[in-house]
């Protein structure tokens, strides 16, 4: 019990450190908040007339539709920023000092992921607040907002796991930073920004099978129409799948890091 309490304190301390680190460095916080907010404004203003297209699902406004996409973008970039910060820690030798301390190795990774999840939570609240301020309705009410927030927080944990695995494997911040374009590719090839039925091939077909489309639909549904059990379960299944993948990759990368030093 005492061991568990100690581990929880380690995770909390490392998580708090990673949050402070993000807010202190403009390079880390801008991709999470500034760029997605800017893109939300531009895409809402630029492509907002798209809701008049035949086949566009009934929504109150394009802003309401886009909120889930912006949360996803922010969450994925939080995962990427978390990976970059973790790799910087490895480059600077901070992680080596943690490895040499009497704490379980998994707590080191979990601490970083806790920080990333907290940033995901912050991002979801930020975009819900922006939506409400600019007139978007949350059709699912408070339970719908809580569900969207939960799904984004859990997703950031999942995506952060993959970022942490790549940081551990490569030990290089520039390699993790190089994944930034990939985040954009994954987002554009999902239904984050437009209904999948109205996308152009081959993006349309890829979006149909992209696990991030399931997550974004699970987040969007409580905002645009109300909680839907099927879409929520599909989103949860996609998140669990990515968490398992992140855990497997992180465990393997951690072993590699301990072996090569």
């Amino acid at each position, binding site marked *: 019990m005492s061991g568990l309490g100690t581990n929880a304190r380690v995770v909390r301390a490392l998580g708090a450190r990673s949050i402070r680190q993000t807010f202190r460095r403009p390079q880390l916080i801008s991709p999470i908040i500034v760029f997605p907010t800017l893109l939300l404004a531009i895409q809402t203003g*630029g492509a907002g007339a798209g809701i008049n297209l035949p086949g566009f699902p009934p929504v109150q406004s394009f802003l309401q539709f886009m909120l889930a996409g912006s949360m996803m973008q922010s969450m994925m970039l939080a995962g990427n920023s978390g990976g970059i910060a973790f790799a910087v820690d490895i480059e600077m030798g901070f992680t080596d000092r943690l490895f040499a301390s009497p704490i379980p190795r998994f707590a080191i990774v979990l601490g970083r992921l806790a920080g990333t999840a907290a940033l995901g939570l912050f991002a979801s609240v930020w975009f819900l607040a922006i939506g409400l301020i600019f007139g978007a309705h949350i059709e699912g009410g408070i339970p719908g907002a809580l569900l969207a927030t939960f799904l984004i927080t859990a997703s950031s944990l999942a995506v952060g796991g993959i970022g942490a695995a790549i940081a551990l494997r490569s030990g290089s911040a520039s390699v993790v930073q190089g994944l930034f374009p990939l985040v954009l590719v994954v987002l554009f090839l999902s239904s984050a920004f437009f209904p999948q039925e109205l996308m*152009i091939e081959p993006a349309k077909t890829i979006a149909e099978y992209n696990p991030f489309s399931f997550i974004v639909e699970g987040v969007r549904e409580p905002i645009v129409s109300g909680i839907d059990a099927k879409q929520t379960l599909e989103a949860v299944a996609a998140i669990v799948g990515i968490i398992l993948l992140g855990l497997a990759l992180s465990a393997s990368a951690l072993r590699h890091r301990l072996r090569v030093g």
Partner: protein
Amino acid sequence: MEAAAAQATASGWRANLATIAAMTARAKNELLRVPGAAIPGVLAPTIFFLGLNGVFGALIDLRGFDTSSYESFIVPVSMLQGAGFTGAAAGVNLARDYEQGWVDRLLVSPAPRWVLLAGNVLAASARSLVPATFVLAIGFAIGVQWPGLDGLLVCYLMVAAMAAVAACWGSMLALHYKSQSAAPLMQAGMMALVLLTPAYAPLELLQPWLEAVARINPVTHVVEAARQGFVGDVTWAGTWPGIVALVGLLVVLGSLALREMRRTNV
């Protein structure tokens, strides 16, 4: 006496041009020696181009959209976006040079401040042709209409000048903050300037607030000038507002960057 003064002036100009050429060559060497550094600047606009085309391509079905090819409509925007990223990168590189002491060495040299700035800006202008050409090649591969030689020249002119504007913006911020931490501000500023225009749809189809912003954003004229060959005919009436907008932006941002450079002490 007058002949000696004229000779000194000519020699001064030759020295200035040689300095600008040397600084441009340094930027070119950086591109050749570290090609990986140019990849994000090339990849980002390409991903945006392909992504926006895949996601928002159906917008051409809206009443009031006067083109049948969204890829042709959006490709000049992505080329200008590439120019914005390249120019902002010039600012980041200048901040890095400052952090490493290279700018201090330049400042104690007898080269005038404007020459140092011009070297950085012209190098960015030349580098912007790399992502623009890459995006355009991808565009042609997926069906972008041939803009005609005049349309292509106007588009490249807009791209090169936009990169110079972005480099002035980036240099101004780099010299003001003297830190690479200002990079997000350099990139976000250019992204906003290029995208707060009829980038995604014609002016009439934008939301009222964005339409109002786009109408006063000078880069709207640049986007429309760069786009004209891809969606219709190239005309002088469609070109000169873009040139005036770019000259105005260059004068304003160039002056501000020069002021920051003059304020920078060794």
